[in-house]
């Protein structure tokens, strides 16, 4: 709950939509090169647990990475996709873990926390990322 007298945090929101079919196509065309270039070992391990949902899960994670980039506001420079990781909690929700260049961007932007929500249905995957900043 908001404490009286304490400044409210500033917010940034990012969202992205990704085609599941296009992700499946990328996997079919480029295979491991695509997977290893975009996703972390943790993400690949989770997404491969259910082959029937693999493309949906990968697409949702790609959308999460792009949504995070919008929050980070890197300008023309883009962090490596693998420096933004979606970590799935056994409880079913997801968290974001930033490393390397993405972590530096978050630090420079004074981002205090990040929250992510993923969804996929009817051939599309969506992610929304909210960042709080204390100015």
């Amino acid at each position, binding site marked *: 709950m908001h404490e009286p007298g304490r400044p409210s945090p500033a917010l940034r929101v990012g969202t992205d939509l990704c085609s599941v079919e296009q992700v499946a196509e990328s996997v079919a065309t480029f295979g491991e*090169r695509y997977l290893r270039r975009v996703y972390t070992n943790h993400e690949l391990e989770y997404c491969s647990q259910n082959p029937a949902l693999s493309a949906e899960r990968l697409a949702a994670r790609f959308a999460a990475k*792009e949504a995070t980039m919008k929050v980070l506001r890197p300008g023309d420079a*883009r962090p490596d996709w693998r420096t933004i990781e979606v970590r799935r909690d056994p409880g079913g929700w997801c968290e974001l873990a930033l490393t390397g260049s993405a972590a530096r961007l978050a630090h420079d932007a004074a981002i205090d926390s990040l929250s992510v929500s993923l969804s996929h249905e009817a051939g599309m995957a969506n992610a929304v990322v909210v960042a709080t900043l204390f100015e």
Partner: protein
Amino acid sequence: MTTDRIREVIARHGRLAVDVAALSDTDDLYRAGLTSHASVNLMLALEDAFDIEFPERLLRRDTFESVAAIGSAIHELHAELNV
């Protein structure tokens, strides 16, 4: 010719909303329909076509902004390989 090859790769993997032949070398590919995910495929296909690997410092939006920008990046990477 490098530019022709780049255009071939864009035509096959860029998923643009328009024919790449209708674009000049400096026309904005994002405005022509290049999405963030398609840019991944484009990057991987360019790496295959030109035997290069884009380092993180070139994973910039403006690297893939136009045929000319892509050509400059490829030229830069080839020059580094030849040093």
